[in-house]
C-alpha cells in the first residue's frame, strides 16, 4: 500500500468521474453508493496505509512515494509524489473519516435535491483534491490540491446556482482566495529561486542552509498570506461567512473541518521555516489573535444559525494560528483535530435543525427544539460544550494548550501575553455565543410558525449516525492530548505530541518545535478557561434559556452602537467595497474608456486600410468555384516552371 498512495486520492476521483459522467442517468441510489463508497474506500485505504506506515517506520520518517516526474526544466522541477509522515497521517485520518461521515450525512440531507449527482461528484472531487493537498510531497503538488479544493469550494458554494447570492458568494470566495493563492505562488517562486526545489524536505534543508534572514521571513510571510486566504484570517476572512450559502454538509466538510484548516496545515508543515523567523511568527500569532477576537465578537450578534457557526469557525481558526504563531505546533494540530470533530458536528447538527425546520435558518424563529429532535439536540449540546472549552471536553484541552503556550511562548514574551489576553477574551465570547446559539435554538418556546412546528421531525439515520459519531469524538477527542500537568499525575502521555515529534525537526541554533509550559501558567490558564467557559455559559443561560430573544432586544436598546457594529460585522464588507472594489472598478472604467478608444482607433484605422485594399482585391472573388480552381492550377504551373 505504501507504494500505492496515489490510490487514496484516486478513489474519490473515480467517484467524481463516475458520478459526474454517468450520475444523472444512473439515479440517486447509484450516486449515493459511489459517492459514499469511494469516500469510505479512501478512508479504509488511508487507514491501511497508516497501519503499514506504523509498522514500517518506527521513528516517524518521511515516506515519499514518487508516481512520476512531473516536470524538469533547467534543473528545476518537481515530482508527482505522495508522502506519509505523522502530520500527513493526522490530516489524512481527519479528512477521510470526517469526510466520509459527512458524505454519509449528505445522502440524507441532499436527498430531495435535483442536482444530487452534481453535488456528490463535486464532493468526491473535493475529497480527492484535499487528499492531494495533504499527501502531496512538495509545495507545488500540494498547491494543485490547494487550488483544487478552492475550485470545489467555489462549485459547492454556488451549488444553488438558481439563487442570486450563492453564485456571488462562490465568486467572492474564489476571488478572495486568489489573493491568498497569489501569496502562496510568490512564496513558491521564492523557494524555486532560492532552493531550486519545492519539495518539503528539500526546502527545509535549503532553509537550514541559508539560515534565518529576510529570505525566509519573506517566504513565511507570503505563505501566511496564502494561509490567510484559505483559512479565512484577517483581512481575507470575508468570504467564509458568505460561503454558508452552500449546502450545510459542505459547510461542515469544507468550511469547517478540512479545507479551511489547510492554512494551518501549511504553516505547521513549514514549521522549520517559521521557527527561523520570529517576525513571521509574531505576525501569524497576532493576526490569529486578532481574528479570533474579532470574529468571536461578531458571532455574538448574528442570528443566522450557520453564520454564527461560520464566525465561530473563523475565530477558532484564529486560535489555531495563535498556536502556530507562538510555536506550539502540536497545539495547533490538536485544535485542528478537535475543531474538525466538534465543528463538523455543530454544522451537521445545524443542518439537521435546518432540515427539521424546513429550510429556516434564523435562530430567532426557532427555540424549544429540544423535545422535537432529541438526537440532534444532544449531539449539538455535546459539541457546544466541546467548543466552549468546558472542562474535559475536546475543546478544553486544545484551547487550553493554545492559551498556555501563548502565555509561555519563548519567542516573544510580551507579545505573547497580549495574544494570550486577546485569546482569553475571545474564548469568553466563544462560550457566550455558542451557548446563546444553543439556548436560542433548543431551549424556550418555539417561535416559528405553526406550520413549521407541525413539520418538525428528527432526521433520518444516515444523518443522525454521523452526528452521534462526531459528538462522541467531540467528547473524547481531547484525550489524544492530555496536558502534561494532568498527564504526569495520571500517567497518560500526550499522545499527539509524541506522535508529531518527528515532524518538528530539531535544528541546531533553533528552538525546538515544541516547548514545555511551566506548571504555573498552565494552572492559571486552565483555571481561567474553566471559569470563562462557566461564566459564558451562565451568562448565556441567564439571558437566553427562557426568555427567547428578549435579551438581544435589550442589548440593542442599551448599546445600539456596539450592537449594530457587531451585527453588521464591523462594516468590513462595506469597507472593502469602499477602499478596494470601488476604486478598482473606477480605475478599470477609466482604462476601458480611454485606452479602449486609443487602441480601438488604431485598430479601426488598420481595419479601414485593409477594407480599402479588400475593395480592390475582391474582384477576384467571383463566387465561382471553377475560377478559383483555374487560378490555383495556373499558379501551380507557373510555380513549377519558375522554381523547379
Amino acid at each position, binding site marked *: 500500500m505504501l507504494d500505492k498512495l496515489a490510490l487514496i486520492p484516486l478513489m474519490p476521483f473515480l467517484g467524481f468521474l463516475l458520478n459526474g459522467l454517468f450520475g444523472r442517468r444512473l439515479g440517486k441510489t447509484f450516486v449515493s453508493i459511489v459517492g459514499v463508497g469511494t469516500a469510505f474506500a479512501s478512508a479504509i485505504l488511508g487507514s491501511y496505509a497508516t497501519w503499514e506506515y506504523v509498522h514500517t517506520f518506527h521513528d516517524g520518517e518521511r515516506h515519499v512515494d514518487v508516481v512520476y516526474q512531473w516536470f524538469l526544466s533547467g534543473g528545476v522541477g518537481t515530482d508527482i509524489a505522495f508522502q506519509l509522515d505523522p502530520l500527513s497521517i493526522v490530516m489524512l485520518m481527519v479528512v477521510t473519516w470526517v469526510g466520509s461521515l459527512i458524505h454519509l450525512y449528505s445522502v440524507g440531507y441532499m436527498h430531495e435535491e435535483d442536482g444530487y449527482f452534481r453535488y456528490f461528484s463535486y464532493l468526491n472531487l473535493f475529497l480527492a483534491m484535499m487528499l492531494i493537498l495533504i499527501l502531496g510531497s512538495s509545495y507545488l503538488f500540494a498547491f494543485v490540491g490547494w487550488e483544487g479544493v478552492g475550485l470545489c469550494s467555489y462549485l459547492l458554494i454556488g451549488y444553488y446556482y438558481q439563487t442570486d447570492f450563492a453564485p456571488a458568494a462562490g465568486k467572492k470566495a474564489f476571488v478572495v482566495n486568489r489573493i491568498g493563492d497569489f501569496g502562496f505562488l510568490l512564496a513558491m517562486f521564492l523557494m524555486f529561486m532560492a532552493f531550486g526545489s519545492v519539495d518539503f524536505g528539500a526546502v527545509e534543508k535549503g532553509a537550514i542552509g541559508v539560515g534565518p534572514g529576510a529570505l525566509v521571513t519573506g517566504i513565511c510571510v507570503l505563505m501566511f498570506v496564502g494561509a490567510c486566504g484559505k483559512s479565512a484570517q484577517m483581512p481575507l476572512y470575508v468570504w467564509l461567512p458568505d460561503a454558508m450559502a452552500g449546502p450545510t454538509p459542505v459547510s461542515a466538510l469544507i468550511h469547517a473541518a478540512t479545507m479551511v484548516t489547510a492554512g494551518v496545515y501549511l504553516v505547521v508543515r513549514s514549521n522549520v521555516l517559521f521557527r527561523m523567523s520570529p517576525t513571521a511568527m509574531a505576525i501569524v500569532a497576532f493576526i490569529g489573535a486578532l481574528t479570533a477576537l474579532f470574529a468571536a465578537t461578531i458571532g455574538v450578534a448574528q442570528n443566522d444559525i450557520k453564520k454564527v457557526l461560520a464566525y465561530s469557525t473563523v475565530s477558532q481558526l484564529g486560535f489555531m494560528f495563535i498556536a502556530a504563531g507562538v510555536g506550539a505546533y502540536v497545539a495547533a494540530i490538536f485544535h485542528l483535530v478537535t475543531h474538525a470533530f466538534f465543528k463538523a458536528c455543530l454544522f451537521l447538527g445545524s443542518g439537521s435543525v435546518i432540515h427539521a425546520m424546513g429550510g429556516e435558518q434564523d435562530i430567532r424563529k426557532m427555540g424549544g427544539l429540544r423535545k422535537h429532535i432529541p438526537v440532534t439536540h444532544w449531539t449539538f449540546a455535546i459539541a457546544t460544550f466541546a467548543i466552549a472549552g468546558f472542562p474535559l471536553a475536546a475543546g478544553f484541552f486544545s484551547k487550553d494548550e493554545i492559551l498556555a503556550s501563548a502565555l509561555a511562548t519563548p519567542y516573544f514574551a510580551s507579545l505573547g501575553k497580549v495574544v494570550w489576553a486577546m485569546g482569553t477574551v475571545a474564548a469568553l465570547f466563544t462560550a457566550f455565543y455558542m451557548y446563546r446559539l444553543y439556548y436560542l435554538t433548543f431551549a424556550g418556546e418555539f417561535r416559528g410558525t405553526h406550520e413549521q412546528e407541525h413539520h418538525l421531525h428528527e432526521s433520518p439515520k444516515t444523518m443522525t449516525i454521523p452526528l452521534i459519531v462526531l459528538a462522541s469524538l467531540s467528547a473524547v477527542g481531547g484525550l489524544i492530548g492530555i496536558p502534561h500537568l494532568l498527564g504526569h499525575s495520571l500517567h497518560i502521555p500526550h499522545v499527539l505530541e509524541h506522535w508529531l515529534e518527528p515532524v518538528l525537526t530539531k535544528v541546531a541554533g533553533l528552538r525546538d518545535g515544541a516547548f514545555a509550559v511551566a506548571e504555573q501558567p498552565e494552572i492559571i490558564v486552565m483555571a481561567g478557561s474553566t471559569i470563562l467557559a462557566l461564566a459564558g455559559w451562565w451568562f448565556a443561560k441567564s439571558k437566553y434559556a427562557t426568555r427567547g430573544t428578549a435579551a438581544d432586544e435589550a442589548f440593542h436598546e442599551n448599546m445600539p452602537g456596539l450592537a449594530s457594529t457587531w451585527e453588521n460585522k464591523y462594516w468590513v464588507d462595506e469597507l472593502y467595497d469602499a477602499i478596494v472594489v470601488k476604486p478598482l472598478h473606477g480605475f478599470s472604467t477609466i482604462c476601458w474608456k480611454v485606452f479602449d478608444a486609443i487602441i480601438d482607433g488604431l485598430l479601426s484605422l488598420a481595419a479601414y486600410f485593409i477594407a480599402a485594399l479588400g475593395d480592390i482585391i475582391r474582384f477576384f472573388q467571383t463566387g465561382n468555384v471553377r475560377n478559383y480552381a*483555374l487560378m490555383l*492550377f495556373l499558379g*501551380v504551373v507557373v510555380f513549377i516552371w519558375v522554381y523547379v
Partner: protein
Amino acid sequence: MFEYLIFFTFAAIAVIFSAIVVIHRNPVVSALALVVSFFSLAVMYVLLDAPFMAALQVIVYAGAIMVLFLFVIMLLNLAHTEEPITRPIQQFLGITAAASFAITIIYYLCKAAVLHTGGPAEFVSDARAIGVSMFEAYIFPFEAVSILLLAAIVGALILSQRTSAITEAKDGGAR
C-alpha cells in the same frame, strides 16, 4: 515480360476510363468508369509489391466511396442533367491549364533523373509491417484520422438532415 503486359494493359485501361470519367456527360457512367480506373490502379499497386494497399484501394474506393457516389447520383437522379457549355473562356483556359500542367509535369519527370537511384531497395509491405509502422511511428496521425472520421460522420449527418436547424428556421417552424 508478363509484368509489362499487365502494366500496359491496365495503364491503358486506367487512362481510358479516367478520360471517360472526365468527359462523359452521364455521372453514372463516369462513376462506373472511375471504379474501373481505381481497379486498374489497384493492379498497379500489386505490380508495385503493395498487395495490401491494392486490397485497401479496392475495398475503400471501389467498395465504399464509389458506392456512395453512385448512391447519391441515383438518389438525386442526376443522370440526365444537361450541361450546356457556358463561360467559353473559362472552358478554354481550363483545358489550357490542364494541358500545360500535364506537359509541365511529364516534362520534368522525364527530365529529372531522380528515378535512377540504382535499383529499388528491399521493400516489405505486408500487413504486419504496415501494422507495426502504423501503430508505432504513425500512431498519432492514426488517432487524429479517427477523430477526423468521427467529425466527418457528424458533419455528414448534420448536412444531410432533412429537418436541419437551417431549414426549420427558413420554414418558420411550420413543418
